[in-house]
């Protein structure tokens, strides 16, 4: 029993609100990712769950029990910090053994457990090294080992990969994920990197200004974002959001008619969202209806694909197309493209909420 429930958590520093009545339920064994821009309150929420910070209002339950009046050490959660916070004067072995020694476990048990965890993380050959003698990736591993060694009820990660280089990051990302599959300990993972969120999370919680914008599986968050903010925050290159007017069977944007998804409203203003890779060059008289004309401004090759920045009229649009298609396009060229009607997101221009019924 180790689900985490946050009820109406509020927090402000010096009268500046950081968290605003956050409600969250993390299921037993779930990997939940908190995703949001810098300063939106992710770390604050995580630290409140850990007990390192006290909320102004609301309550936290871990494993069904309220923990609001518990000292961090009584909550049985483990945290991996962004800067790892390893004990600088202790060897790797002592770092791993610290929590067990404090619990006054028998030395033989401590040794067995430390070796077990070090074996999983490949740390045995560094047992006698100080943290300062380790590389960033190794330190990160020690930090994870220190969290794992005492089998906590909940793992909390605060941007644990942000100090690693890109290649190592994707490697460790996979390792954390497979560790979670093996241990299935409830995990809350903070990041501002959407790739980490999409690849690792069972569910993603998108935050903004101390509030929750959407909680859902990676597919839900990506394929049916609840509002314009979520749509823009997730996905790279960023989704196109175009201002248009719905007119019968299409949406008119800069004098061009774009297709509408099934069940869309038939009139009124709308924000028309479509991701760059859901746009395709029109192959002559394509089977997808309604090709739209645009003018190339510039192109960015990214290896397998080409990102085309184009002008409709007033508004700009970005397409991600295959290398072969994009190679032919030069600045100033006019081309026609089609839109996958099943991948269109309509948002209310005022509330910016999703209006497609689906």
């Amino acid at each position: 029993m180790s689900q985490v429930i946050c009820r109406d958590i509020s927090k402000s520093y010096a009268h500046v609100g950081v968290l605003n009545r956050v409600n969250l339920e993390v299921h037993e064994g779930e990997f939940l990712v908190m995703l949001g821009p810098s300063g939106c309150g992710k770390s604050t929420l995580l630290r409140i769950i850990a007990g390192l910070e006290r909320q102004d209002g609301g309550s936290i339950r871990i494993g069904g029990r309220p923990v609001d009046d518990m000292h961090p050490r009584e909550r049985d959660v483990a945290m991996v910090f962004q800067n790892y916070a390893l004990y600088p004067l202790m060897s790797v072995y002592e770092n791993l053994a610290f929590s067990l020694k404090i619990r006054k476990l028998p030395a033989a048990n401590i040794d067995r457990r430390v070796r077990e965890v070090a074996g999983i993380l490949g740390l045995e050959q560094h047992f006698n090294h100080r943290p300062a003698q380790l590389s960033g990736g190794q330190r990160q591993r020690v930090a994870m080992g220190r969290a794992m060694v005492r089998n906590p009820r909940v793992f909390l990660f605060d941007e644990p990969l942000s100090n690693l280089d890109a290649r190592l990051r994707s490697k460790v990302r996979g390792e954390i994920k497979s560790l979670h599959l093996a241990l299935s300990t409830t995990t809350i993972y903070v990041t501002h990197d959407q790739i980490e969120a999409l690849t690792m999370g069972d569910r993603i919680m998108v935050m903004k200004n101390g509030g929750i914008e959407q909680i859902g599986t990676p597919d839900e968050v990506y394929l049916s974002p609840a509002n314009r903010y979520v749509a823009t925050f997730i996905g790279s290159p960023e989704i196109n959001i175009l201002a248009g007017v719905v007119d019968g069977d299409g949406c008119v944007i800069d004098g061009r008619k774009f297709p509408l998804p099934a069940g869309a409203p038939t009139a009124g203003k709308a924000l028309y969202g479509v991701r760059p890779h859901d746009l395709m060059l029109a192959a002559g008289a394509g089977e997808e209806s309604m090709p739209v004309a645009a003018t190339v401004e510039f192109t960015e090759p990214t290896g397998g694909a080409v990102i085309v920045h184009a002008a409709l009229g007033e508004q700009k649009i970005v397409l991600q197309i295959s290398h072969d298609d994009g190679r032919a396009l030069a600045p100033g060229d006019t081309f026609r493209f089609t839109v996958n009607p099943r991948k269109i997101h309509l948002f209310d221009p005022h509330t910016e909420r999703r209006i497609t019924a689906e």
Partner: protein
Amino acid sequence: MATAQKTRPTWRAWQLSVRAAAAWAVVAVFMFPLYWWISVSLRHDQDIFNKPPKLFTPEVTLKSYKVVLLGISPSSTSIEKSGAVHWGESSATFALPSLLDSVYIGVASTLITLAVSLLAAYALSRMRFAGHHHFIFWVLSTRMLPPVAVALPMFFLFREFGLIDTYTGAILIHALMNFPLAVLLLKSFIDDIPREIDEAAMLDGASRITVFTRLILPSMRGGIAAAAVLCFVFSWTEFLFILSLTQAGVNTVPVAASTFVTSTGTAWGYMAALTCAAVLPAFIFIVLVQKHLVRGLTLGSLK
């Protein structure tokens, strides 16, 4: 080209030697008073005020040291060779006890200051409490008053508590005097240790005390050494409080040295001998602690 490359090293060597000469000149300027003071301590009385002053001591004598440190009475030094020496003669010029008092008070007050200010510095660095921000100001404010303004009220307090002319009183006043600076210095060292280390340890199950003793203290040996040096030196050289709060029972080097200034004249030789001798214990203390200073500075990096 070839000649230019050949001349460059000699030009550089010249540059380096000028730089070294300038550095040594500065050192010499600063060291000169110390040299002069030592040389005064080794002179006969009549050589101290030579006109024009002599840079080198004409005739070296240990007379002043014998009087001040061994208690040989001044009058007997002249007939020393005849063997009529009065060892340990209690006289106003026998100042060895003041050196011992200074060591005792310096070490004890430093230990007390460190013990208390380490705890205070940890609390100020890591804990939030009402008035947290003002606290540091209030800690420092006692140092903003001129010591004279503190000495008088302290005199009345000490008299009330029976601390006048006691070692306890002298140690206490020096500990109090050094406390603000030690707190601020140690706090800055604790501030340099990431908070997350405390937090990780607490999540690992450690109490505040465990965090403090197992993680904070070992990480700041250098800071503790620096604070110890400062506290000891301040206590070693402090004059006013000891003068006003003690009488014959407790006598530190600065106060003892001042007694060589009398209405009938100043015993420059004795004063110089005592104070030169007093450099030594402080020097030994600093050398002992300095080992930790250097170690503390390199601990953070690799090995």
